């Protein structure tokens, strides 16, 4: 009975993480489209939500690789997964609060490391996997996207340089519909499957599924796709504002170049079996598209804050994940600990959102589409 309760809570927490993942990463695909007015905010989140939902059904290959190579698979228990999810959710919400884009995948990996470390010790952590799947991609993704977007915008300006600005801007805005959709589809394929993998792992650990074949049940696919697309539709407007207008003030050609370069980098890496964070890629792409035009066009202070958030993602989510796991063990009985930690987290999140909502519509689409002059 106790283990059933833990399983139900892990499934609910995984879906909550999926929601924050969609909510947090909406900006990756649509911030540039909103900023250049290629799409209205509401149309952009709707488009992204639909493609995220569709992407979740495309393939299940990523689901089987969750946490693989990060912690020893046989050491993972549902309560460790619960601690990992709490670490990831907390970091996603904290970075959203400050409007900072950061990788949800790295937050989940960090949470898993912290939770597993507290539960089983350092021996279950696979350091090689952390270097290969977290540290190296975090260095390559933004640097490569920065370079590709920078070269792309220079080439684009060179090719269309003598055309009328109205035609050029309309053309690139139209192109952003394609690149934004591609980015959302790739995101749905990658990120919804992380949750599917987490839930399936919990079901296997609980004995509901056979460990020999990693078959993701249909209800897991549908609920994960729904959670990520709902999160996407809800929209993390603070991060959208940072990515769309606080790093650089972009024109449609820059928006297209950042998204086009980002899509090229993400899909090439995915094709080579070297998955990169969409957040790192698009952030690097936006900075590259701005810096190539003029170095001072990039607000390097904002870029520095984003880089700091990336560096802190793994350690901070690991600490929170470890703390969450540790708190579940204080009460001895696993189910009681998990229930109490869940209630504590729900209370904290409700209090934070409640305060925010009372202060004004800063987390709504209306706030994002309100002109600056109207807000002043």
């Amino acid at each position: 009975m106790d283990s059933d309760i833990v399983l139900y809570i892990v499934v609910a927490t995984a879906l909550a993480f999926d929601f924050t993942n969609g909510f947090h990463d909406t900006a990756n695909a649509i911030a540039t489209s909103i900023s250049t007015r290629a799409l209205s905010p509401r149309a952009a989140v709707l488009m992204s939500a639909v493609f995220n939902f569709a992407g979740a059904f495309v393939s299940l290959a990523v689901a089987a690789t969750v946490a693989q190579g990060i912690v020893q698979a046989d050491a993972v228990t549902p309560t460790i997964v619960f601690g990992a999810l709490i670490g990831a959710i907390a970091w996603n919400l904290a970075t959203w609060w400050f409007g900072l884009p950061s990788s949800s995948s790295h937050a989940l990996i960090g949470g898993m490391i912290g939770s597993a470390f507290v539960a089983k010790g350092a021996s279950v952590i696979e350091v090689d996997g952390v270097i290969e799947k977290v540290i190296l991609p975090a260095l390559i993704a933004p640097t490569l996207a920065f370079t590709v977007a920078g070269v792309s915008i220079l080439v684009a300006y060179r090719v269309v340089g003598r055309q009328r600005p109205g035609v050029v801007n309309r053309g690139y805005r139209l192109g952003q519909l394609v690149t934004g959709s591609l980015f959302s589809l790739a995101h749905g394929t990658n990120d919804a499957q992380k949750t599917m993998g987490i839930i399936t792992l919990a079901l296997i650990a609980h004995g509901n599924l056979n460990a020999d074949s990693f078959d993701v049940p249909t209800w897991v696919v549908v609920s994960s796709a729904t959670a990520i697309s709902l999160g996407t539709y809800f929209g993390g407007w603070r991060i959208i504002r940072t990515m769309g207008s606080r790093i650089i003030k972009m024109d449609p050609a820059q928006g297209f170049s950042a998204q086009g370069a980002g899509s090229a980098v993400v899909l090439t890496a995915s094709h080579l079996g070297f998955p990169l964070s969409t957040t790192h890629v698009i952030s690097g792409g936006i900075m590259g598209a701005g810096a190539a035009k003029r170095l001072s066009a990039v607000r390097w202070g904002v870029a520095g804050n984003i880089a700091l958030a990336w560096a802190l993602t793994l350690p901070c989510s690991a600490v929170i994940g470890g703390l969450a796991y540790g708190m579940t063990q204080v009460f001895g009985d696993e189910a009681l600990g998990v229930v109490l930690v869940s209630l504590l987290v729900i209370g904290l999140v409700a209090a934070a959102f409640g305060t925010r909502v009372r202060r004004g519509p800063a987390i709504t689409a209306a706030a994002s589409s309100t002109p600056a002059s109207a807000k002043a």
Partner: protein
Amino acid sequence: MGLISAVIEWGKIGELLWVAPLAGLAVAITYSFMIVGFARADEARRDGDGRIAGMAYSLLAVVSTAAFLAVVVYGVVIIVKK
């Protein structure tokens, strides 16, 4: 240091470092030429300039559109086949 070197798949990274820029440039170049082709073909039609120039720009627009769509479709294939 040796451990780190053993873990890193240098071959994949090397391939990523030249294929991704190539793909990114393909997107930017094909789409930019598509805009130029359509804009110039439209201008030539409106201004009554030489038919050959108009046809050449129309051809540029069509070829660039086809190339851009091919890159996008290949991207979708990568996503689906993953």
